[in-house]
């Protein structure tokens, strides 16, 4: 049957019509081969615009449709639905992008019109070869995996579990709570973090639908939306929790001393230790001299010290396989490493600390009084590792302004005689209640001086903070007893590992990338994988929880439905031509093609395939075709331009 094509040219208000002569273009399109009708209209995506198309399909018996308007990324789904409504297969549509690729980038109306005509002629030549494709659905394993047991992962897990679906919550550390567990209070309300976190963790660990797998790592993920299989390796605690009464004799006996990362490296810990003040004892296998090099010889000292025979070095790693339909990545962020700003003196002097260390000190009243009680002048430094090209972190970390304010207030409340100064360039107080909090902090007597700190050095027992007070245009040398560096958030060092595990792209700032910053903020390029919390970018607890619950809700959609639609415009392999070289397997970012061991040929898993065409381009024997982008379709599109 000869194709009967309808061409619809959109003015996009004046976006296109100002630069492209839409009437001349319509006349041109009408005369193209196989074109039965060509129309133009102010907004093709509007209801009356779509009605033009559906009416023509019904009355003129169109077989294919070309819409010349914006990018297919904008409205291809709209017009596919439009023609489907009128009884056409949704894949018998081709978009000609005469807005982003024509009207918006050209000034000369004459040439822009000629280019629009070319783009339309090209689309018409291609559309005639498009064939109907079937929309397919696959079943869904109605369970979820949450990677990361911080405040984001905990909330996401709870929401999915409360909806009645099983959740596996995998946490790398031997404790739950993540970065937030290290904090003392929240802003702007100064609530104790422990009071917020403890009931939340209790709910998670007691939830009948949540299986917490701590001290563990997701090693491999295979499959696709609805049908993921994850391999999880769990490190043993080497302590039998049923026997241990947490007397701590083993800790005293352990000869190892390493910086306690949970305590922001302020204090040392042993290889057998309590990861948080309330957590059960575990052995850190990477530091234990018995496990690493047998320094403890035949009988480890901790074992000898334990009256209850609770320490058990025969415990082995376990590997479990999890089948899930959706995955939430909630792997968190790191605090900026202040040694990367050597001019600020961190590491060179004990009275320069980071804001994370401040939180740990504040959580321990005796330590806090020791560090801050005698200090007369305390300086807070803003934007350490944020908004700073010298560190490669161009972004604002969004939390540090309020962290500085909160910490300054804590000092002022406990030691009213201390002079507390926050050096800043801009104060960002954009969250709910933040500006009011900033007002209250200033009222409490905290001084704000406008000027970034450039350098911190020692003079006798004091630190000298060098900055310019830009408001009075005065270079300063402020003598401080303590300097607190307001460190920003950075992507975790393991972000690459997580990204590779799931084939997730990262944004320029190094965090994991959502599909669209506004419209699809929790979805990733991989269907069925969602982002929650600071792995996607710096955010405070409020925003983290909001995003975690959004991710849970997005993950629940396929779980509740039980089936998912998958892309139809996928690639297919011609067995006769496939040489089994495997180039496509190496090229595909989604793991869709695989060599069949028996036939030696490639098979493409259509559920994983995104139709990107990378395999087809790589295939040396041209055995791979992508539906909607076959050589015949593309060559006819090009030929008409010659």
């Amino acid at each position: 049957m000869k194709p009967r094509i309808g061409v619809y040219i959109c003015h996009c208000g004046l976006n296109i019509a100002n630069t492209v002569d839409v009437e001349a273009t319509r006349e041109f399109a009408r005369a193209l081969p196989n074109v039965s009708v060509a129309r133009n209209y102010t907004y093709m995506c509007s209801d009356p615009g779509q009605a033009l198309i559906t009416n023509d399909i019904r009355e003129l018996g169109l077989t294919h449709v070309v819409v010349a308007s914006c990018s297919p990324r904008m409205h291809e789904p709209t017009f596919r639905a439009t023609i489907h409504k009128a009884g056409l297969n949704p894949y018998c549509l081709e978009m000609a992008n005469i807005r982003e690729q024509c009207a918006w980038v050209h000034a000369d109306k004459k040439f822009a019109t000629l280019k629009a005509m070319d783009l339309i002629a090209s689309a018409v030549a291609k559309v005639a070869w498009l064939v109907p494709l079937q929309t397919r659905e696959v079943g869904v394993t109605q369970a979820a995996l949450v990677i990361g047991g911080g405040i984001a992962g905990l909330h996401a897990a709870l929401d999915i579990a409360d909806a009645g679906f099983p959740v596996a919550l995998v946490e790398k550390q031997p404790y739950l709570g993540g970065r937030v567990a290290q904090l003392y209070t929240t802003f702007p309300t100064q609530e104790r973090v422990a009071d917020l976190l403890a009931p939340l963790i209790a709910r998670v660990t007691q939830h009948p639908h949540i299986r917490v797998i701590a001290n563990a790592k997701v090693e491999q993920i295979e499959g696709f939306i609805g049908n993921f299989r994850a391999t999880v390796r769990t490190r043993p605690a080497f302590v039998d929790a049923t026997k241990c009464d947490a007397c701590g004799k083993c800790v005293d006996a352990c000869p190892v001393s390493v910086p306690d990362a949970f305590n922001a490296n302020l204090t040392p810990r042993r290889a057998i230790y309590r990861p948080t003040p309330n957590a059960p004892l575990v052995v850190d296998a990477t530091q234990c001299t018995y496990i690493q090099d047998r320094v403890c010889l035949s009988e480890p000292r901790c074992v000898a010290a334990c009256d209850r025979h609770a320490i058990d070095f025969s415990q082995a790693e376990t590997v479990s396989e999890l089948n899930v339909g959706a995955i939430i990545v909630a792997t968190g962020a790191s605090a900026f490493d202040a040694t990367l700003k050597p001019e600020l003196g961190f590491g060179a002097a004990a009275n320069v600390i980071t804001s994370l260390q401040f939180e740990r000190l504040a959580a321990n009243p005796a330590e806090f009084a020791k560090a801050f009680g005698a200090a007369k002048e305390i300086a807070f430094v803003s934007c350490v590792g944020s908004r700073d090209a010298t560190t490669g972190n161009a972004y604002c970390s969004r939390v540090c302004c309020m962290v500085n304010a909160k910490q300054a207030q804590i000092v002022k409340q406990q030691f009213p005689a201390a002079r507390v100064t926050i050096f800043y360039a801009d104060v960002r107080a954009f969250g709910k209640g933040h500006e009011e909090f900033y007002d209250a902090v200033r009222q409490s007597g905290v001084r704000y001086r406008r000027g970034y700190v450039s350098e911190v050095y020692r003079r006798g027992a004091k630190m000298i903070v060098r900055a310019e007070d830009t408001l009075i245009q005065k270079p300063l040398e402020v003598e401080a007893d303590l300097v607190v560096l307001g460190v920003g958030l950075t992507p975790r060092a393991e972000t690459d590992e997580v990204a590779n595990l799931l084939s997730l792209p990262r944004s320029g700032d190094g965090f994991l990338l959502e599909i669209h910053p506004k419209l699809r903020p929790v979805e990733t390029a991989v269907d069925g994988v969602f982002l929650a919390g600071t792995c996607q970018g710096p955010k405070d607890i409020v925003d983290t929880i909001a995003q975690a619950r959004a991710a849970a809700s997005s993950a629940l959609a396929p779980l509740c439905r039980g089936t998912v639609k998958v892309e139809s415009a996928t690639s297919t392999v011609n067995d006769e031509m496939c040489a089994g070289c495997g180039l496509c397997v190496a090229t595909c970012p989604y793991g869709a093609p695989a060599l069949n061991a028996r036939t030696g040929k490639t098979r493409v898993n259509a559920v994983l395939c995104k139709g990107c065409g990378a395999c087809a381009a790589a295939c040396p024997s041209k055995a791979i075709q992508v539906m909607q982008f076959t050589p015949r379709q593309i060559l006819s599109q090009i030929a008409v331009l010659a």
Partner: protein
Amino acid sequence: MLDTETLVQQFDLLACIQCGKCTGGCPISPKSALNPRALIYHMLLGGDFELVSRDELWDCTTCATCGMRCPKGVKAYDLIIGLRGQWIESGKIPTTLRAPLTATLNQGNPLVLPREDRTLWADGLDVKNVAEGAEMALFTCCENAYDPRVQPMPKALVRILRAANIAFGTLGLDEQCCGSEIRRVGESGLFEYLRDDNLEKFQAAGVKKLVTTSPHCYNVYKNEYGSPGIAVEHYTQTVARLIAEDKFKFGKKFEATVTYQDPCFLGKQNGVYDEPRAVLKALPGVKFVEMDRSRERSVCCEGGGGRMWLEGTNTKVRLANDRIAQARETGATVLATACPFCFLTLSDAVVATGHENDLKVMDIAQIVNAAI
């Protein structure tokens, strides 16, 4: 009138967020009216800017701390150099700059000494010309070549390179000023002339590898000559490498507690912090100690950016004097450096502060030579 709009474009000043890190970190700003941030703000506002009344523009040592710290990648010191250029173009050249600039054009050095005297420092050392075939060209800074106070430094370096059996030569009388400081006082025309002329001479002599005595020459050849395909090293890098390759036998001990002044053009501007320290630490007898303000937090000696010929607006406070006090705090008896400008400013300061008997300023080359 000053064309502020062009300067805004040329130095990417629209990136500036007026945070004050440049002025806050400037070693000069506490003792001078110099305020890099305010200068940028004036340029951004446009309108009238009375250039030739701002004597503080000549206070800048071009140590580049402002640019290194800037969170938005703005180089305030480059703007200051640009403003100096406009000033020079107006013809009102500061009095003490005139002779050095003229002499650099006519005699190839700013010390106002004859071109034919350039190699006198090497008399009796039998140093080859690089054109006679040598793997490495040794480039002597004008200061090292002409100023008797720092001539011992290249002499020591000659002995060091010979001890390691390195075949090297100099450009002889073809050697002339590298133009680093000339560019920094704003004489970009003269700088371009020197650059082109030097590149021609390097090419004629077949120079592939250049070792400089001064961090300033090192910086300009490495970063401002447009990558002519010549490998450039500061001599501390060369010596550190030779030590690592085990090319020396140290026959003597150098018994002293030594601290080190990072030259801005070596450390801050080029990240060469470790090599000079590695050399000092490798010497038998040396006890190496650090000042708190070292490496990225080191302090400028006030010798760069043309300040060898310009006193500055405030002669009462000299950074080099503070530096002597800081060096003495460490318990050091020797203050090492690796730059002729640092050597001269610190040597003056050690006398001015009355500590010439308890602190000796030495170039690293002299210390290494003493241990061979």
